[in-house]
């Protein structure tokens, strides 16, 4: 039943992504930036999905430390890994946009640097988990690290407001606007990428359950 729901969500996300791609290619080029502006339809939803994953990981880590329930630890690792993939997509698509708009692949400004630091912190979280064998210790250390890493998330979000950055102000939150049909497609694209994130998280969560099953089977094998 759970698998069926996942397949349905995945199919809806794929249909929406394909439909959005068709509509996006039909949009005219933006007056100043040209066609490269359309990368925003992937760049921003990927960033929002990644930061949502970081938020969920933060809450799950706190809940794990309070309850010591390993379901929360599994959720934290699942969303962190999925968020890392989306943040990588966000950083790379942003870099490609920067090459056209700014003439450079990368600028060490507050938004870009804090986003890169965020990616490195969560990559460190996954490395830390691989380095610790004992499951309870691994989950506890990882939860503390995840809470610490989350400090960077508000810095990523508000960096463009707090400091003068080369990164543009956001379209919706910085006084700009889209034509209505672009806004609608952007909304659907946001939903599609969030749904992809949900499917990835659910699959990754199931893998964590498999991992726990392996841990318990190993304990049984040692005991015999």
């Amino acid at each position: 039943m759970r698998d069926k729901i996942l397949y349905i969500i995945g199919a809806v996300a794929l249909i929406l992504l394909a439909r959005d791609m068709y509509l996006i290619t039909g949009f005219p080029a933006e007056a100043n930036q040209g066609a490269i502006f359309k990368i925003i339809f992937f760049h921003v939803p990927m960033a929002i999905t990644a930061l949502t994953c970081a938020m969920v990981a933060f809450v799950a880590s706190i809940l794990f430390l309070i309850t010591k329930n390993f379901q929360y630890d599994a959720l934290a690792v699942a969303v962190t890994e999925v968020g890392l993939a989306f943040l990588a997509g966000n950083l790379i698509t942003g870099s490609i946009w920067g090459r056209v708009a700014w003439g450079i692949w990368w600028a060490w400004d507050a938004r870009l640097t804090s986003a890169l630091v965020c990616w490195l912190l969560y990559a460190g979280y996954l490395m830390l988990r691989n380095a610790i064998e004992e499951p309870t210790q691994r989950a506890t250390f990882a939860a503390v690290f995840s809470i610490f890493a989350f400090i960077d998330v508000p810095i990523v979000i508000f960096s463009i407001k707090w400091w003068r950055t080369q990164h543009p102000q956001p379209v919706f939150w910085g006084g700009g606007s889209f034509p209505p049909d672009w806004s609608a497609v952007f909304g659907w694209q946001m939903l599609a990428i969030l749904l992809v994130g949900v499917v990835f998280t659910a699959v990754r969560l199931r893998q964590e359950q498999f991992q726990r099953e392996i841990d318990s089977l190993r304990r049984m094998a040692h005991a015999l």
Partner: protein
Amino acid sequence: MYALMLLQASADDAVLREMERLQRNFTFLNSGLWVAWLILVVYVLMMVSRERKLKREIAGLKAMLEDKPRS
């Protein structure tokens, strides 16, 4: 006549430059969209291979546990 030819040449240059800029813009947009899709596909493939590995490991451990009590 010469001035007219010069004007024509500079207009052609401007059109060519604009076409190059648009072409470059499309090339980068194309690569950006490919990268975005590629990351998602690579991640899916990584998850599929991990799931297979985990299932193999579970099957191996279960087989080992079934054999052990007999021996």
